[in-house]
Structures are given as structure tokens and as C-alpha cells.
């Protein structure tokens, strides 16, 4: 039987990366008895090994926690776990829309960071009751008072009732559960109204097809019911309903305010847009829940197999990944240099790295990835506009009227000592300053408008390095703007290597071209023959370097005592060759295709 809405509390945990979100989730599972000590694997909710390794949550996982409160009543707490990274803004918002409250976890040894702010604002905009939780209070370097002040001044949340906890030791976790019951509102909604359920997550199950995670907003969702997805219009029959606690447990219905999964023989995750509304199929549909939009990839890169024979294996792997992650897009692509592969679209850089890593790790593929690029809107002289997300495909300059590129708003939090360095970096990256303010006496919030392409060029690493790791950032794409852009072609032994073409701002084209050549000289190993690398803008060569030929690569002596040593040396040398792509007669390592990211300014 569903619980009455008055006994349900739906909440999520939001935090900056590494502030202790997953540890707190584990502790809540443990304290409510959902997970026994014995079953506990650290960070249970992060199921994918890659998530555990990187310490981030990629797909949200939701869990029901039965909790007997101090007043003796048993409440149904639904913890809705949100992705913790900037690339997954939209998914975070959908998950927050399924909640009435949020725990804002702030590492009290670090204070408010860029994603603390971004996530807190999302929660406040979604009208959630936000409960500040000061974490890591067991550490000697903790500064609770300063963190409270930052939350009040920067986020604008009262910290009068902030909770002081240590997710690691479990200190204060009981108080969190009580606060959820007393402070988070119970779900509103009409139990007798027509069914409306919000889809906030989906995944692919090899046996049951696409599964969706929903929050019932009005009415009741029942097994056997005929349902309709409003955005796609497709209809299904509910085959199974259930809740995660933490393992899947079937239920016959989900009532208003409840959260659970739906299996309905849905073929692909593509048909289950996050943010979509589920209604009863036979009835006149009630209005859709607000907020649905189709997620559009912002970052693009080519992915090619190192060995052309692996093309089919790569396609299969991409299709499987896509089942679980419809936000990532791919289509077949050919490169003169790299042969047959795919052009892939991602939500952001991290999303891209995760997909590439999964392809290599889970599917054991050797891949060559090209440098990430944004989508350009190219206005041609004949009045047409083409969208191009592959620099190699940008039409020749004499046909182009102007080019627009995506712009983003970047919010950077930094200790005041690094303000100068951060501003210099933003200015170098064609930024336009929007605001700068102190969040406390020694922390500054800087807002800039930057071309998205500049963020892709290693911006985050550069930000970390100019601030000794202390600055944090968050960005959001805000639209397109016209820029004076040109294409740099890279020629290897006279032949243009399409996969190395880049689009850069005209003012920087000469230095970028030269720096790129110098970097390529470093990255392309010496070969049997001399290799000439040139950068050209149109037909004009702007830089040239030569990678000298190897004249000798042979060990003179190889007697009994040298054999093991030489074998190990060769094994190492062989490993280095795994990620090389033969382009014409030249072998080019994977690193070289990402050279543009490593060109220092």
C-alpha cells in the first residue's frame, strides 16, 4: 500500500564535488538500516566502478529509506541522488523537481565552492526547503563559523538551523533525519486527480528494456495500467513497478508523492526523455509538468578505432552506451586521416571523458579521440546558415560571411590572492567580465562571459594551475555570438590532416598555429623518415617544424645478461605503440590529436 503523502519526504543531497555527498548518503542508508554494515561497500549509491574511482556520481540513483522518527511515526524518506557535475545541469534540475527538500552539504574545511552555489540556486529556484549541512566537522582544519557566514552571505541561506555533522564518523546524522521529517514539506498533489508522474531518470536493463524512475505528482500509478509519455506520445503498459531499498523491490502501485521505477517494455532510453510526464493513456491528458526539454550536446569530438578492423566493435559499444545515456549522441564520420569512425556529441567535457573511458575500459577498445570542438553557426555569403561541429568541415573562408560560436557564462570562486591570475586567464581567453564580488573577506566570485570553445581549450586545468588548485568553476551555455574565427589546417608531410584542424580566433591564429606545431614536434615520435609539420591558414603556411628522422634504434650488445633487460625495454616500447594511428606513412600518437588542448598560452 502506498504511504499517505503526509508521511513521505522526498529530498536530495547537493554539494560541490568531494564535499562528502556520497559518504553522507551511505551513512543515511546505514542508520535507517537499509544497508547492513556487512553489505556496505563504500559509496553504495555510486554503482559504476568508474564513479567510485573518480568519486563522482554520473547517473542518479534513488533509494527509499523507512525511518522511525523520534515521535514514533514511520516515515518514507526518498533520497534522490543527483549527478554532482556541471555537465549534468538539466538532469540535476529534473531530479530536484521530484523533491520538496534538499540537504546542501558544504565541506566546512573548504567553504562554499562554485558548484555549491550553482546547486543551491537550482534547489532554491525549484522551491525546495534547503537545509545547510556543515560536513567534515571531525577534521582539525574545520572552520564552522566561516562556512556559516559564507553560506549566509553568498548563498543567502540562514544558517541558524544549519546542522554540523561528520558523514565519515556518523556524527550528527540522526539530527539530519529528524530535520528531514520536521522541515521538509510533505508532497503536495492530488491523490484523486488524473495520473501525472515526472520522469527524472532512466537506464537500460538488458532484460527489461528501458526503465524509468518517476515521482508520482498526482493520482496513482498501477501495475497493468496503460500509460502515455506526453513528450513522445508513445503508449505503454506498466509491466512492473517498484522501489529501490536499496535493491529493487516490486510494488503493485505508487501513490501520490511516491518515488519508484517503472518497467513498461520500453525499447530504448531514447523514448524516455528525462523531464517527461507520464499520464494515463485512455483519458484526456492533464497538462504536462513544467520543465521538459530535449538535451542538446554542446561538445563534439571524433572517436576512431586505432585499428580499422575494430569499427564494428566500436559501433556496437556506442549503441550500448547510448541505450543508457541518450544525452550522448553519435553519428558515423569519416576522416581522411583516421578512416571510419564516429562524431560524438556530449553535454560537456567531463561527460566526454567518461564516455571515452567507458568505451576503453568496459569494451576494451583502443581509440583515437580528436580534440573537442563546439558547434559553429556558419553564415555563408549566399545567405544560408550551416551548423558545423567538426572544424575540418568548416567551409572555406571565401564562402563565409561570418561565424557564430557558443558563449557561456562562467562563475569562478577563488581565494582573493589569485584574483589577478584568474582575471588574466579569462582575458586571455577572450572573456568579457560581468561581475566581481567578495563572498567573504578572502574569497571572490568572478563572473565572465567566455566563448565555450575557450573553456574546452584546457581552461579548467589552467584555472586550477593559476590558483594552485583553489579556484572552482561552473559554466553554463547562454547563446551564440559572432566572432572573427579562422580555421588552422595542419599538414603532415604536405598532406592536410583533417582530424587536427582547429578553429581559433583570428587574433591568435599565428601564435596558436606556431604553438601547435611546436607541441606536435614534441608529441610525434621520431620516425624512420623526417616528418614535416606545417600550420596553414587558407593556403598560407604560418609555421613549420621538422621531426628529425631516427637514424639508429638498436642495442649493440645482447648477450645472456642483457636479455631480460632488453625484453622489458621492448615490451615498454611496444606498449607505447598501441595508441598510434598510421596516417599515410607517418605514425601519430593519440596525444597529438589533443595537442591543441596542451598548447600553453
Amino acid at each position, binding site marked *: 500500500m502506498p504511504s499517505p503523502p503526509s508521511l513521505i519526504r522526498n529530498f536530495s543531497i547537493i554539494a560541490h564535488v568531494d564535499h562528502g555527498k556520497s559518504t553522507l548518503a551511505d551513512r543515511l542508508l546505514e542508520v535507517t538500516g537499509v544497508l547492513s554494515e556487512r553489505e556496505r561497500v563504500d559509496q553504495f549509491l555510486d554503482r559504476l566502478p568508474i564513479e567510485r574511482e573518480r568519486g563522482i556520481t554520473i547517473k542518479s540513483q534513488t533509494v527509499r529509506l523507512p525511518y522511525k522518527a523520534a515521535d514514533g511515526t514511520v516515515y518514507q524518506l526518498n533520497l534522490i541522488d543527483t549527478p554532482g557535475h556541471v555537465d549534468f545541469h538539466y538532469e540535476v534540475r529534473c531530479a530536484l523537481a521530484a523533491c520538496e527538500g534538499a540537504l546542501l552539504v558544504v565541506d566546512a574545511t573548504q567553504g562554499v565552492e562554485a558548484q555549491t552555489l550553482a546547486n543551491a540556486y537550482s534547489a532554491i529556484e525549484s522551491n525546495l526547503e534547503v537545509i545547510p549541512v556543515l560536513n567534515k566537522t571531525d577534521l582539525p582544519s574545520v572552520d564552522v563559523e566561516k562556512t556559516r557566514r559564507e553560506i549566509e552571505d553568498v548563498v543567502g541561506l540562514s544558517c541558524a538551523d544549519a546542522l554540523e555533522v561528520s558523514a565519515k564518523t556518523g556524527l550528527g546524522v540522526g539530527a539530519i533525519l529528524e530535520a528531514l521529517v520536521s522541515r521538509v514539506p510533505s508532497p503536495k498533489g492530488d491523490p484523486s486527480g488524473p495520473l501525472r508522474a515526472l520522469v527524472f531518470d532512466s537506464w537500460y536493463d538488458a532484460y527489461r528494456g528501458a526503465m524509468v524512475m518517476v515521482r508520482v505528482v498526482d493520482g496513482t500509478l498501477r501495475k497493468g495500467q496503460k500509460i502515455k509519455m506526453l513528450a513522445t506520445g508513445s503508449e505503454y503498459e506498466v509491466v512492473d513497478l517498484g522501489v529501490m531499498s536499496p535493491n529493487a523491490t516490486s510494488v503493485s502501485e505508487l501513490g501520490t508523492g511516491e518515488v519508484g521505477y517503472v518497467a513498461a517494455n520500453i525499447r530504448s532510453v531514447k523514448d524516455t526523455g528525462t523531464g517527461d510526464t507520464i499520464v494515463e493513456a485512455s483519458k484526456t491528458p492533464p497538462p504536462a509538468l513544467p520543465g521538459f526539454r530535449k538535451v542538446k550536446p554542446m561538445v563534439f569530438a571524433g572517436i576512431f578505432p586505432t585499428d580499422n578492423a575494430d569499427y564494428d566493435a566500436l559501433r556496437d559499444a556506442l549503441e550500448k552506451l547510448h541505450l543508457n545515456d541518450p544525452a550522448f549522441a553519435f553519428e558515423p564520420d569519416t576522416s581522411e586521416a583516421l578512416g571510419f569512425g564516429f562524431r560524438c556529441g556530449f553535454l560537456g567535457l567531463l561527460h566526454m571523458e567518461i564516455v571515452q573511458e567507458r568505451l576503453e575500459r568496459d569494451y576494451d577498445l583502443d581509440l583515437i579521440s580528436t580534440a573537442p570542438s563546439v558547434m559553429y553557426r556558419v553564415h555563408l555569403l549566399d545567405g544560408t546558415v550551416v551548423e558545423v561541429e567538426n572544424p575540418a568541415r568548416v567551409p572555406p573562408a571565401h564562402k563565409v560571411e561570418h561565424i557564430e560560436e557558443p558563449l557561456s557564462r562562467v562563475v569562478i570562486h577563488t581565494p582573493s590572492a589569485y584574483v589577478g591570475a584568474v582575471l588574466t586567464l579569462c582575458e586571455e581567453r577572450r572573456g568579457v567580465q560581468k561581475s566581481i564580488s567578495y563572498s567573504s573577506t578572502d574569497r571572490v566570485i568572478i563572473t565572465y562571459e567566455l566563448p565555450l570553445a575557450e573553456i574546452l581549450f584546457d581552461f579548467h586545468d589552467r584555472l586550477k594551475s593559476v590558483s594552485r588548485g583553489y579556484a572552482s568553476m561552473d559554466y553554463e551555455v547562454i547563446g551564440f555570438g559572432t566572432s572573427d574565427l579562422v580555421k588552422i589546417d595542419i599538414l603532415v608531410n604536405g598532406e592536410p590532416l583533417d582530424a587536427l584542424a582547429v578553429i581559433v580566433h583570428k587574433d591568435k591564429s599565428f601564435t596558436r598555429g606556431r604553438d601547435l606545431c611546436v607541441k606536435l614536434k614534441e608529441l610525434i615520435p621520431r620516425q624512420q623518415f623526417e616528418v614535416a609539420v606545417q600550420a596553414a591558414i587558407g593556403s598560407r603556411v604560418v609555421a613549420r617544424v621538422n621531426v628529425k628522422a*631516427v*637514424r*639508429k634504434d638498436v642495442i*649493440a*650488445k645482447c648477450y645472456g*645478461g642483457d636479455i631480460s633487460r632488453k625484453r622489458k625495454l*621492448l615490451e615498454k*616500447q611496444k606498449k607505447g605503440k598501441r595508441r598510434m594511428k598510421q596516417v599515410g606513412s607517418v605514425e601519430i600518437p593519440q596525444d597529438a590529436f589533443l595537442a591543441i588542448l596542451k598548447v600553453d598560452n
Partner: protein
Amino acid sequence: MATDGTCTAIYVHFPYCVRKCSYCDFSSRPVRRDQVPHDAYATAVLREWSLRSLLMKQPIRSISLYFGGGTPSLWSAASIGRVIEEISRSGSVPGDAIEITVECNPCSIDEAGIQMLRDVGVTRLSVGVQSLSAPRLEMLGRAHDATRALATLSAARRAGFAHVSADLIYGLPGESPAEAASEARAIAQSGPDHVSAYMLSVVPSTALGRAMRQGAVSPVDEAQAADSFIAVSDALVGLGYEHYEVSNFARTGCESKHNGWVWRGGSYVGLGAGAVGSMQLADGRVIRASNSADAQGYLEAMEACSAERLLEAGGVVQSLEVLDAETRMSERIMLGLRLAEGVDLDAVSAELGVEGWTRARQRAARELEVKGRLVREAGRARIPRHAWLWENDTAARML
């Protein structure tokens, strides 16, 4: 090649030198000639031999005995004789004479000494000529001059050695390919039937490596060294030698039997401080054992060593590696590609029971063939002489 049989080569390392050459990173220890523990060292080596024999597949038949170092010509002929006598007693291949080589430094041996080595049964002398130019000999830290080195070669001939080999080092800073070739020719004219010509490789930890870092010696010019490789090869091949291994040349039938055996995957026992061996144990496993380079420690440890101790890394044996079939396949390819004859992967595959021409190797071989870096003849792969210059890269791709 009968690696699963019981034939073996034996390498005896003599770790003492009067002075250390500037380029040498081999295990050796400078001592005064009168401090060399001639007899004690022979006793220790023979003790190790008797223990190792217990571990090996029986019956053991030796095909060669090689005294390397260090400077084995510092060792008294009597002690060398003792080692030869006892080891050859344990058996050799019937009807096939065992090859017994001693490496000689021209400074440490005279005509009488050479004759004594002949008398105790040595069949082959390998003479460290290294260079014929005074400044280059000095750069190499050699105490002899060209005349003495060449005289040693002719003395060896006169003493009646069946085989005499000369070592040459080329590709030194400032040496032109023409100079390297003319040294090779001059050495050949003194009558050795075998020449080992090594391109100088500078190990950072050696005296020469330090001198180069400090700028006292100019660095080696890679292109010149590569051209010298070809020039030396052309010179010796022109004089009728076969370039049968990357760094080795021989008149027909005069290859080093010992090294040829090792390069074709044969088992070899290493005896002495700093020696390395690769042998088949009685249980069929193939191990590679490296002895610790500490000569004094070796002498002491051998007084109370057991056969079991030789199967543990840590004491006398510094490192121990069990070679599985795949590893042995890799080594056979690596060593075989250094030989003019190459390596027959089908034959090695049949012997070791692992795949030779895998899909990856076939693909690598195709790519290398296009570049002229490899030749395939039936199951055999070999590197043409001029392409040996990229041998590391080729072997790495074929591993």
C-alpha cells in the same frame, strides 16, 4: 634447436679487472693483479656448478664454455684449466668438440700467457682490441696501444687457437664512418676469423657517461654512428666476413658457437659473481637467474651454499625469473631478429606450444615489409642488414 634437451652452454663470469674501462657498465671490480683470488674463485665457481647441475634436467651435456668478464685473462691459466677440466668431465656432446672461449685484454696477457691458455684446453680467444687510435683508446680508458692489441691477435694465431675473435668499438665522438671502416679493415687484416664490432652505447652511470654530461667529451652524432654501422658492415663483408648478427661478423663456419646457441634460444648456465643464466630445471620450468655482482660476497656464500638456495632470490642469486612460453616466444623473436638468418616463428611455435604468427604479428610484419624493414620467408622473419639500424623498433612491433 634442442632447448628442451639437456644440452647447455656455460658462461663463467670473472668479475675482476685491473682498471675499469670508461664505457663499461658490466659487473667488475678493479683489483691489483696480485690480489686476485685465483684458486678460491675457481673453487667457488666449481661449487656453484656442482649445485646448479643438481637442479638441471639430466644428463647435462655442455656445448661450450665461455669465460667473460671483467678480465678473465687476469685469471691464472692453472685456475682456468681446473674449471675447464672439471666442467668437461660432466659430459659433452659426443663427436662434437666443446668450444672454450676466453676474453682477453691485451694488457693483461703476453705470448707465454696465451700459450698457457692454449695448453689448458682453451679453443677460442676473444681479444679486446676496441680501437686502433690512441686518442680513442684513451677516451675508452684502455691501457694498451694499437700495436699491443694487434700483436695479441697474431700471437693467438701463432699459439694455434682454432678461432680468434677481435672486439671493436666504433661510433665514438668525433669518429667518421670512414675511420670506423678503416679500423675494422686493419683489425681484419691481423687475421681474426671473427669480429665483434659494437656501436658505442653510452651508459649514463659510467665514467664516459659522466664525462659527456659534463661536456668533457662531445656527444655521439647519431647520423654518423648510423653511417658507421653501414660502413663497418660493408668493409668487413667486403673482406669475406658474414655479418651474421647485429654486431658480429665471422668467416664461414667461424661463428661464435656459444653466442649462437644463446641467440637461438639455447639453455645457458651462468656461473660466478654477476653471471646470468637461463636454464631448464629438472621439473621442466625454465628460469633466468642473475647472480649478485658482489665478488667477495660470492666467494663467502659459496662456501656454504645449497642447491635450494640457488632457487631463491635474495642471497647469491639477486633476481630470479620463471620464463613462461609467451615470454620465451618474445625473447626468441627479439634475439632471432638480431641474426641474419632471422627466426622461424612456426618452428619456435611448435617447440614452445604457443602461437607464433598471431594476427597482430602478421599485421605488424606486413607493415614492416612495406617499409623494407622485415622480410618474410615461409615461417621465417628476418631483418635485412641495412634495416638492423631500427632493430629495437622492429622487434618491439613483432613482440
